[in-house]
Structure formats: structure tokens, C-alpha cells
């Protein structure tokens, strides 16, 4: 037990180190001079050189990396070259918006995928084909295109939902922060106007963000379910007199769901990459849109922090998935007090 924990911790650290090194090197290899961004296009070359010196950009890469990583670990994530803001502060302020969006997208993706995949594998035939098509289309649809289409149809066309303008209508006060989720905080505060507005503004971007992970999950769940359906124990359960539908829900879905937990990291990755585009389109004040600005302005510190944070979350998701699997899969569960006699 202790040993597997140590091994896991080791692999987590190695993954994070590699991610930090690779992203650091790549960012420094792209053309352009961040010192120029800082001083502006009209400043003299001397001024640029002075800033380069000051930022440590002339130091050898390993030295730069070492300085960066030690500062990062001590909570100093640097500041934005373009506007001087402290990166850690910016990210902390924008994180809840992204988390709320991603959380709702995740919920939508999981619930929709479970329903679609279960019906598709239970009914097979036409449903199976439709679900396969949906999955292929969903996986191939760029979230920004889908985001735009949703706006055009549901906001501009039907006028059912608010347009792409952030988390809350301008005239509404954000609820006092408890969780950072506007919907939940508004409920805590008993502010139902804010709640319904926040929820209405979440629906379209969350759906746009949910499509790729949802389609991925549909494909995975359909494949898992059709494999489990071949297992002899399904015939044995049916031989007890249990109906096909109950057998499917109780045994097939349960068995098909377990291996799906292992792909938590991949799901998270689709949510992170998707959020960058979706946030930009919906003017969502989260980290994704910050990244787009950061890239445009060659803000090393912002981009680097985003990448490191993503890597950290990815590793965390995988770790959590492992632990969850050990909890819910009896074959992996470690019994308290060891193996029973």
C-alpha cells in the first residue's frame, strides 16, 4: 500500500517536471521578444536590452528554468509582461469561472453519454447506428464552431437563452463568494434572479464544451457495454429470470462504467482545451480566455502557468481516478484488515 503510494507520487512528480521542462523550452523557442512587449514598440534597443537583463532573459536556459521553477513553487508565478498583473492573482480570480463552466459541462457530458450509450446498446439496431454517428460527429466538431451555432440558434434565432456576454447580466451583482460558482453561491444567498441568470448563461457554453467529452464517453460506453453483453454472466443472470432491461441496467452498465473511470484524465484534457475556445466565444471570464490573450501578447508567465496548472490537474485527475477505482471496483478494493479468511 505504502509502496504503491510512493510509486504513484514519484510518477506524479516526474510527469509534472517533464511538463514544465517541455513547455518552458518550447515557449522560449518561439520567435519574438517578450522584452519588446514590455517596453513597447517605440522604445530604444538599449531599453529593450536593459529589460532583457532585468527579466533574466539573457541567462542560460537552465538557469532561467531553475529560477522560474523555484519561484513558481514558492507561489510567485511571475507577472504579465503586457499589463504587469500578478499571474497567480489573475489565475486565482479567474479560476472559479472556468471551474463552474467545466463542472457543468462535465455533468452534462456524463449524464447525456450514459443515457445515449445505454439506450443505444440496449436497443442496438437503429439506435446503435445513430449513437455511433453522433459520437463521430461530436468528436469531430470543433467546440468554437458548435459554440457559434448554439448562439445563432438558441440566442439570436429563438431568443431562448442569453447571448455570449459572460457569467452574469451587467446589472446584476455577483453573489457573495463561497464556492466561486455563481449558481451555487446565488442559491446560498437566496438570490434567485442571479441564480436563474447565471444558469441561463451557463447552458450554451456548457453544452458546447460538453460535446467532445460527451461523444468520447458515448463511444467508450457503447464499446464497453457491447463487450460486457457478450459475457457469460449476463446469460446466467437472464437464466435467473431477470428481464433483459434490468439485467442491462444492473449488470451491464455497472461493469461498463468501471473502466470508464480510468479515462478521467482524457476527459479533463478535452475540457481544458475546449474551455479555451468556448470561453473566448462566450466572453467567459475564465482561465481559457486569459490564455488566448497571453499567447497573443507573448506572456510567458501566463502561458507557462496555464500549462503547468493543466498538467497538475491532469495528474490529479488520474490519481483521483485510480483512488476512486480502488473504492468502487471490488477486484481492486483492499479490504480493511487484509484478506478475510
Amino acid at each position: 500500500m505504502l509502496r504503491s503510494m510512493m510509486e504513484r507520487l514519484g510518477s506524479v512528480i516526474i510527469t509534472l517536471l517533464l511538463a514544465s521542462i517541455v513547455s518552458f523550452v518550447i515557449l522560449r523557442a518561439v520567435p519574438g521578444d517578450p522584452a519588446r512587449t514590455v517596453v513597447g514598440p517605440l522604445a530604444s534597443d538599449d531599453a529593450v536590452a536593459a529589460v532583457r537583463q532585468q527579466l533574466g532573459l539573457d541567462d542560460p536556459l537552465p538557469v532561467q528554468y531553475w529560477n522560474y521553477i523555484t519561484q513558481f513553487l514558492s507561489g510567485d508565478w511571475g507577472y504579465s509582461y503586457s499589463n504587469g498583473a500578478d499571474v497567480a492573482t489573475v489565475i486565482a480570480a479567474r479560476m472559479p469561472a472556468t471551474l463552474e463552466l467545466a463542472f457543468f459541462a462535465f455533468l452534462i457530458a456524463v449524464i447525456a453519454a450514459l443515457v445515449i450509450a445505454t439506450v443505444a446498446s440496449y436497443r442496438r439496431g437503429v439506435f446503435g447506428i445513430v449513437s455511433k454517428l453522433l459520437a463521430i460527429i461530436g468528436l469531430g466538431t470543433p467546440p468554437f464552431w458548435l459554440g457559434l451555432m448554439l448562439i445563432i440558434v438558441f440566442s439570436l434565432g429563438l431568443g431562448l437563452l442569453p447571448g455570449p456576454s459572460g457569467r452574469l447580466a451587467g446589472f446584476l451583482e455577483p453573489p457573495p463568494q463561497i464556492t466561486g460558482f455563481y449558481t451555487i453561491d446565488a442559491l446560498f444567498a437566496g438570490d434567485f434572479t442571479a441564480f436563474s441568470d447565471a444558469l441561463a448563461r451557463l447552458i450554451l457554453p456548457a453544452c458546447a464544451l460538453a460535446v467532445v467529452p460527451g461523444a468520447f464517453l458515448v463511444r467508450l460506453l457503447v464499446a464497453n457495454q457491447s463487450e460486457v453483453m457478450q459475457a457469460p454472466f449476463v446469460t446466467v443472470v437472464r437464466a435467473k429470470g431477470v428481464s433483459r432491461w434490468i439485467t442491462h441496467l444492473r449488470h451491464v452498465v455497472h461493469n461498463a462504467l468501471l473502466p470508464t473511470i480510468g479515462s478521467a484524465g482524457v476527459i479533463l484534457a478535452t475540457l481544458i482545451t475546449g474551455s479555451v475556445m468556448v470561453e473566448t466565444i462566450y466572453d467567459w471570464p475564465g482561465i481559457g480566455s486569459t490564455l488566448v490573450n497571453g499567447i497573443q501578447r507573448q506572456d510567458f508567465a501566463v502561458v507557462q502557468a496555464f500549462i503547468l496548472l493543466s498538467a497538475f490537474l491532469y495528474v490529479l485527475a488520474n490519481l483521483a481516478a485510480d483512488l476512486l477505482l480502488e473504492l468502487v471496483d471490488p477486484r481492486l478494493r483492499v479490504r480493511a484488515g487484509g484478506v478475510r479468511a
Partner: protein
Amino acid sequence: MNAEQLALDIQHLKISYGPVEVIRGVDIQVQPGEKIGIVGESGSGKSTVALGVMGLLAEGGRITDGSISIAGKPVNYEDEKRLNAMRGKDVSLVFQDPLSSLDPVKSIGNQIAEAIRWHNPRMSRREIRDRAIQLLTAVGVPDPAGKLSQYPHEYSGGMRQRVLIAIAIANDPAVLIADEPTTALDVTTQAQVMELLDSLVERLGIAVVLVTHDIGVVAEFCDRVLVMYSGRVVEQVRVEDIFDRAAHPYTAALLDSLPSRAAEAHGELKWIPGSPPPMTDVPPGCAFAPRCHWAVEECSVQPAARVIDAQKLHTAECHRAEEVQAASRQAGGEKEAAHA
């Protein structure tokens, strides 16, 4: 219930997978409490008959002709509701591989309870639990109360097969179908499980259809044996007659391929030369003709159904059944000696 009523009555059953007919007219009658064995080479259709009776054929499989009655009640295989009420109650199934036959993520207690609850919706949790413990005790699982919360991977192969037997007898069915129940177990465990099954069905008066490759097991456990070849029952005979009254060349060949003591000592095994015809292309007449050294011309024209001994329900599908049987009688003495 009429005492003369058959536990299982299969009349002229035909089953196809897609366009291919793999069960080509099978009749099986099983008396209450009777134990019959079905033997035959791989692909002869043993499992298909078993699953057909359960109404659990794989996708693409369907019954195209014939009728099946269980415990005197004709089964309508279109009526899923009635089928669900019948499965596990009138007829139950024990499968070959005890590990893959249990859901790996549900506890043993849960899986036994499922078999009970479904047919006894009024039973309380407590009663179901007690019944599950009672069943586990009956199949010889030690510490049954403690083992209810365990999962299949925590059981040994033999214990898992005992659990499957417990599930199969949970509702005192009229018929228990066991498809190679011991093939996946080691020899010692095999014998123990067969012994257990034997004593249980004896006590509960359950009729058994035992599908197996092992004529030795049949000889020990069954009352009657049915030999299947290419989707037909080519001979049925009482077990005590199988060695010296076999009337079908295929039965005789199967017996010949049994490892006798002398052959085992020399490490030689006889196989039936050739292989069964593909089910897409079964010859007219006797399907065994291409491999049969008794074959005569009319064999490949039309099949022959012979009643060898009506009293003993001995039938054989062979034009030369009488001659074959005469030869068996001669050879039988030696063989019985070899297997005694």
C-alpha cells in the same frame, strides 16, 4: 401435477443461426428426476439446445420449428414475460466457466439473492438472506454467512461452481441444465462438484440435462445418454447399455476414442478420423456417412430412424443399427473390463 408428466419434452426442435440450421429436428424427453447426458463432438449443437430451451440463444439464433414443454407447460418463446417467470423457476442453467459466469462486481450474496427475489417478490430481505445462507450451506460452502459479502474473485473455482449450483437450485426447478459444468475445474474438484450435484438433484427430485464431452462422467452420473451429431440426436440409450449395446457407429466410435487403460499406458489415443460436415453443407441422408466405415449406398440418400428397444427408449439413426449393435456386444465385454 400428473406424476407421468415429463419434466422436459422437446419435440422436433429446429434452431437456426441466421440462415444456417444447426439443430435439425431434435426430440428429447426427460422424466421428472431423471438425469440425461448429452454428448457429441464440438459443434454438434449441445449448447444450442441448452440455450434454446432457456430461450437465451445468442443474437441471430431462433427456434424455427418444434415445441418445448417444461414441467408439462408448453413454452411460448415469443412471450418474454412468461419466459422470465419460467427461467430460474421451472428450468435453470449452470454454465461451464464458473469465473465468467458470475458478475465480477457484485457480491455473491447479491447474486444469489437476485435469483431468489425475482421469483419471490414478497420475501423480506431477512428471509432472502436466510435462504441464501441455507443454499450456500446446501452446496457445501464453508462459513456461508461470512461469505455472502465476498466477491467472485475471492472464491476458488470449485466454490464458484458451487455458488452457481446454489443459484440454479434456488427455486426448486423441474429441470436443471448444466452445460459442461466441470470442464474448467481440476479433476479432484470435478469429482466433488459432480458428487454434490448428484446428491442435490437426487434429494430435490430435479431432472438434469448434463451437456459434456466426458462419457466417463455420463456413465457415472446419468441414467440415459443422448448422442448428438451435426444437430441431431443419433442415438439415445440407457447408460448401462452404452458399452455393449451401442447401435450407432458414431456412438461406437466415441467409445472407441475413450482412453482405455492399456491405451493410456502406451500414450495412444484413438480419434475419429475426419471431421463433422459444416452446418452450411450437411449431406442428405446420414450426416455421419462420410466418416462411417459401415456406410452403404442408401446411407447418403435418406436417414433411418430405428427403435432398438422401445421399452428402454433405445433409438438409433442408422441403417445398419442391428449389425452395429451386434458388433458392440462382441467388443463390449472387453471394453467394460477395461473401464471397470
